[in-house]
């Protein structure tokens, strides 16, 4: 059967079992949108910005485990995907992005809406393609999904010139891929796994440091088994939240720059660090020489390039986390580490993160604690924006389920959380989706309120409104003598030049988030009193419409613990006083 290139794209997507695509039309994808017009099996979600489409596809992927798909036109449409691709790439999220391109005869002529998107995205995609012959479309799409979802997952971009979308050829979807240069290795080396099991047996103060790779591989169950069998405490990265239940006695919470005291102390004192699907990011390790200084290191990861990249590893195991852990669990003996466990309990009792919120004050902690109280983790997805809101969302909510949390960890993309929440809601229609946002970040993709309203997505946007670009303000407060340079979001022309102190006579915040929500046809609720938090959240959860909750929180609330950049991770600032 002969099909046009555009028809092949659609057929191939159906072959791959794709149900939702996020995108935005334009001249160079006219043919693709034409075939989408009357296709009942594939729902296209029109976002209001291509960046929104990319993040929505990403949120869909992180919350479901299925690849996210997005489409954009050539030129500006394609470049608008760039931040979304970079965000997905650094966090290893499976995505396939389609872009239209000018006709092959016009390539390289600076034609209308031409941008070299394959050139631009070389360093931020796992792979990309410029399709030059319609016959290649089925093979390329098959390969793209294979590459995006196997090994270390990541985004793949396919750029299809206008004329190739219209050209016709015989369509047959390949059943296999044959990529000479791509054969990820899933099973770990047996001898190495044995060595790891021995090291675990000999360790007195072992710690598991688990990252996003545990979730990506679907290995959360195996991780739990390992931890419980050998009684090893577990700390997770931001990307790894949910891989291990934070309600479990063995959980240390998150580690790193804004990690818990117990996690960072445990890393410093451990004699065996078991890194699983994690990559020793600088936000995790702080000063490298003082990261797990006494420990033997086991590192399990599917990506050989991650092994010994930043930290010398004693027992590297290159392979799929789930597969390797399953094998390791067979060998590991039951153990307990009473003394170590006691020590950890002591640290936990003193931890500031676990203290209840200050009574009567509307703080971020109060809001997030209430969300935690009101919901079951297996019934929610929480996405975050970037900044203090993100760290509070990570610290104060207890995650117990993989894929219940989506946040831009590696790139730290403001504007990620809200569109990602829409993607997560699309992929999990039965769940309550919360986007924990900052008043700054939300403004980076708030146009997607129109998408949320149009598609009747009942997401809840929790704005922790501190009237500041809070995380930057925190750094200015701590390291730049409170010189609040361009971080106050209420600042007007009439304000004094160098204001470092919010007060009662400050101008009103713009925008008015409640009116903004209403203008889009969503619900807006402002909360200024601690006692109203619960009621407002209940109203939002019950609402079939998208809700924007504007929580006016303490202006200068800070994120603690905090390890100053480049410092040792056991050297934490625990509060204003020190």
């Amino acid at each position: 059967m002969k099909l046009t290139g555009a028809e092949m794209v659609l057929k191939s997507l159906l072959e791959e079992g794709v149900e939702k695509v996020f995108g935005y039309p334009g001249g160079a994808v006219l043919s693709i949108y034409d075939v989408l017009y009357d296709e009942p099996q594939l729902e296209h979600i029109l976002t209001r910005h291509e960046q929104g489409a990319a993040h929505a596809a990403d949120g869909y992927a992180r919350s479901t485990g299925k690849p996210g798909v997005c489409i954009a036109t050539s030129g500006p449409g394609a470049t608008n995907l760039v931040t979304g691709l970079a965000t997905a790439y650094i966090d290893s999220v499976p995505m396939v992005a389609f872009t239209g391109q000018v006709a092959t005869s016009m390539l390289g002529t600076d034609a209308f809406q031409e941008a070299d998107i394959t050139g631009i995205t070389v360093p931020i995609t796992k792979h990309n393609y410029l399709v030059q012959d319609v016959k290649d479309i089925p093979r390329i799409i098959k390969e793209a999904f294979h590459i995006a979802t196997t090994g270390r997952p990541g985004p793949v971009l396919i750029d299809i010139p206008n004329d190739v979308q219209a050209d016709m050829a015989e369509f047959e979807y390949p059943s296999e891929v044959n990529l000479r240069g791509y054969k990820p290795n899933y099973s770990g080396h047996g001898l190495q796994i044995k060595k790891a099991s021995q090291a675990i047996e000999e360790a007195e103060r072992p710690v598991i440091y688990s990252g996003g790779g545990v979730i990506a591989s679907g290995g959360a169950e195996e991780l739990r088994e390992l931890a419980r069998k050998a009684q090893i405490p577990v700390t997770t990265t931001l990307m790894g939240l949910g891989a291990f239940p934070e309600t479990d006695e063995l959980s240390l919470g998150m580690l790193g720059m804004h990690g818990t005291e117990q996690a960072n102390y445990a890393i410093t004192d451990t004699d065996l660090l078991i890194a699983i699907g994690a990559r020793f990011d600088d936000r995790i390790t702080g000063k490298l020489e003082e990261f797990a200084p006494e420990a033997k290191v086991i590192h399990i990861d599917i990506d050989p390039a991650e092994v010994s990249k930043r930290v010398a590893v004693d027992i590297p195991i290159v392979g799929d986390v789930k597969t390797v852990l399953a094998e390791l669990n067979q060998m590991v003996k039951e153990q307990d580490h009473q003394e170590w466990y006691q020590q950890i309990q002591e640290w936990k009792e003193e931890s500031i993160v676990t203290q209840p919120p200050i009574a009567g004050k509307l703080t971020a902690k109060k809001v997030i604690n209430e969300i935690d109280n009101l919901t079951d983790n297996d019934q929610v997805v929480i996405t975050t924006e970037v900044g203090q809101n993100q760290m509070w969302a990570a610290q104060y909510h207890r995650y117990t389920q993989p894929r219940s949390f989506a946040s831009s960890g590696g790139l730290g993309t403001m504007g990620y959380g809200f569109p990602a929440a829409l993607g997560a809601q699309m992929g999990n229609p039965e769940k309550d989706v919360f986007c924990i946002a900052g008043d700054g970040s939300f403004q980076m993709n708030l146009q997607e309120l129109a998408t949320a309203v149009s598609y009747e997505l009942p997401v809840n946007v929790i704005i922790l409104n501190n009237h500041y670009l809070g995380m930057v303000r925190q750094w200015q407060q701590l390291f730049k003598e409170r010189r609040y340079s361009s971080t106050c979001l209420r600042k007007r022309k009439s304000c004094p030049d160098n204001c470092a102190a919010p007060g009662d006579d400050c101008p009103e915040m713009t925008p008015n988030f409640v009116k903004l929500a209403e203008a889009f046809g969503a619900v807006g609720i402002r909360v200024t009193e601690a006692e109203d938090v619960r009621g407002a959240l209940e109203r939002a959860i019950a609402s079939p419409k998208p809700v924007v909750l504007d929580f006016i929180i303490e202006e200068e609330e800070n994120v603690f613990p905090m390890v100053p950049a480049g410092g040792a991770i056991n050297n934490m600032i625990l509060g204003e006083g020190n």
Partner: protein
Amino acid sequence: MRHTVSVLVANKSGVLARIASLFSRRGYNIDSLSVGTTEDQEVSRITIVVEGDEQVLEQVTKQLNKLIDVYKVSDITNDSSIDRNLALIKVQANLDNRSEIMQIVDVFRGKVVDVAANSLVIEMTGSEEKIEAIEELLRPFGIIELVKTGKIAMVRGEK
């Protein structure tokens, strides 16, 4: 330290840009690079000479291996291999010194491939050191133009 990295890649557009990008993002300057097809039409070999510390190079090698279009990467710096560079050197020459220049070329087993009234073009193949050495000896006569290829290399024996 200087490394010679030999990379087998798919012979298609865009591959070189991907490889170059892995070096440039780390601020590495590629000293020399040569690309050509191999006995298999669909495969090209890229030989890259680059200066860099051991650890960063190991990381670049691993990243190269991750590229879908890269089939094989070998750091052949310490392997026993045959290395060749080709240089064309245009040097000022007149009747008085022409024979002196030709003697030098002879010693290095180079070739004179063009003779003009005031210049000679010399073709030279060999290791980098050899080419550098003749360059040094010819400099006093006045080098008008110098063109060098990147290094190509082949590991000895069956490997």
